[in-house]
């Protein structure tokens, strides 16, 4: 199926773009994602999470009205960001939907809308940061016990007996 070989179609069946004033108007939301160091979240998983969250909170009608789609996605090293497109006028509903995403594939996530823009480009330039700071694995003393941890700038995710605890440099002795 080569796109170059176009089949002749009668006038009324040809693909035509909507006139500009009838095209949907969009807003673009920059979304920050945070999780634990071992989290593995890919684009599909995040897209699915948005769909399910919208379906659960707003139902089919509400989801259809949002018409949300994931345009950009990056997640690595416990942090990520995304650009989500939504119908203008539905921004607050999408914001609510995003706020109810508390885990993705069983991995707890923090979600925050960093800002909204009228174009993808403005959205990326204003709110999407460069590559995140490198994390390093280190042993830290939390509550007088040495424990393995993943350290990223001021944030320290400490491994404890039953999982992880989020801490900062202020919690660690000798800081």
């Amino acid at each position: 199926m080569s796109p170059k070989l176009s089949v002749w179609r009668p006038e009324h069946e040809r693909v035509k773009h909507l006139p500009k004033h009838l095209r949907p108007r969009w807003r673009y939301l920059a979304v920050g994602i945070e999780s634990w160091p071992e989290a593995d979240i890919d684009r599909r998983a995040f897209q699915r999470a948005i769909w399910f969250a919208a379906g659960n909170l707003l139902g089919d009608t509400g989801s259809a009205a949002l018409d949300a789609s994931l345009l950009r996605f990056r997640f690595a090293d416990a942090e990520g960001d995304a650009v989500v497109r939504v119908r203008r006028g539905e921004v607050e509903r999408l914001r609510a939907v995003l706020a109810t995403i508390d885990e993705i594939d069983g991995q707890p996530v923090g979600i925050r809308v960093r800002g909204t823009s009228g174009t993808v480009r403005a959205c990326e330039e204003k709110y999407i940061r460069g590559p995140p700071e490198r994390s390093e694995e280190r042993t830290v003393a939390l509550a007088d016990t040495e424990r393995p941890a993943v350290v990223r700038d001021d944030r320290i995710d400490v491994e404890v007996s039953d999982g992880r605890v989020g801490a900062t440099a202020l919690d660690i002795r000798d800081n």
Partner: protein
Amino acid sequence: MYEGVHAHPDGRATAARLAKTAAAYGYGGVVIRNHGDAQTEYDPDRIGSHYGIDVVPGIEIRSNDPGQASGLVGNYRSKRTIVCVHGGPLNRFAVEQPTVDVLAHPMRDGDINHVLAKTATENGVHLEFNFARVLRAEGGKRVRAIQGLCKLRELTEKYDTPYVVSADARSHLQLRAPRELLAVGETIGFDREDIEAGLRAWGELAERNRRRRSESVVEPGVRVEPLDPREDED
């Protein structure tokens, strides 16, 4: 706006991490309201000045016995800025205590009716609109949580009962920015202003209680006025 949070070991982040995240999300303060049996050690002033946020020492008293709860409230009233009571079987007890600031999640394992709402108003006990299950549960649990909040809203409106709003975060990952909570509130039928007022109420409680504990208060109802007399809502 302020949030009421649970820090490690009551949750999965330290008070510092919660404060750092809340400050980045635009909150003016966080109330550390660990349950009495899962308290945490932290330095509110150090954390607060480091991250530029008001860190308010609080507690959420949990007990099955009103007698014991009463002792705990009396004990912690002078030690913590904000005293909450874990809602459920203690709902009636809590709304009858003027020394209680907040009745947490009254609809989760209990109920509020017109009598309790009226009593809460008389005693200035704030009822909490707890968004934990709206944000983090699904299906029937979430449906019941939303129904509970709607019922609570009708009663607090009718009896002009003071209230707070919270996402009840137990880690930095469970925190949501104020704008997000306003959007969620709006989606389930609240006015944005009401959610905002509920998030501000934590801060107002903290300020009021600090003022009461300060030396300018001679005895309840009597205090030395500063130079510019402000309207006193107490």
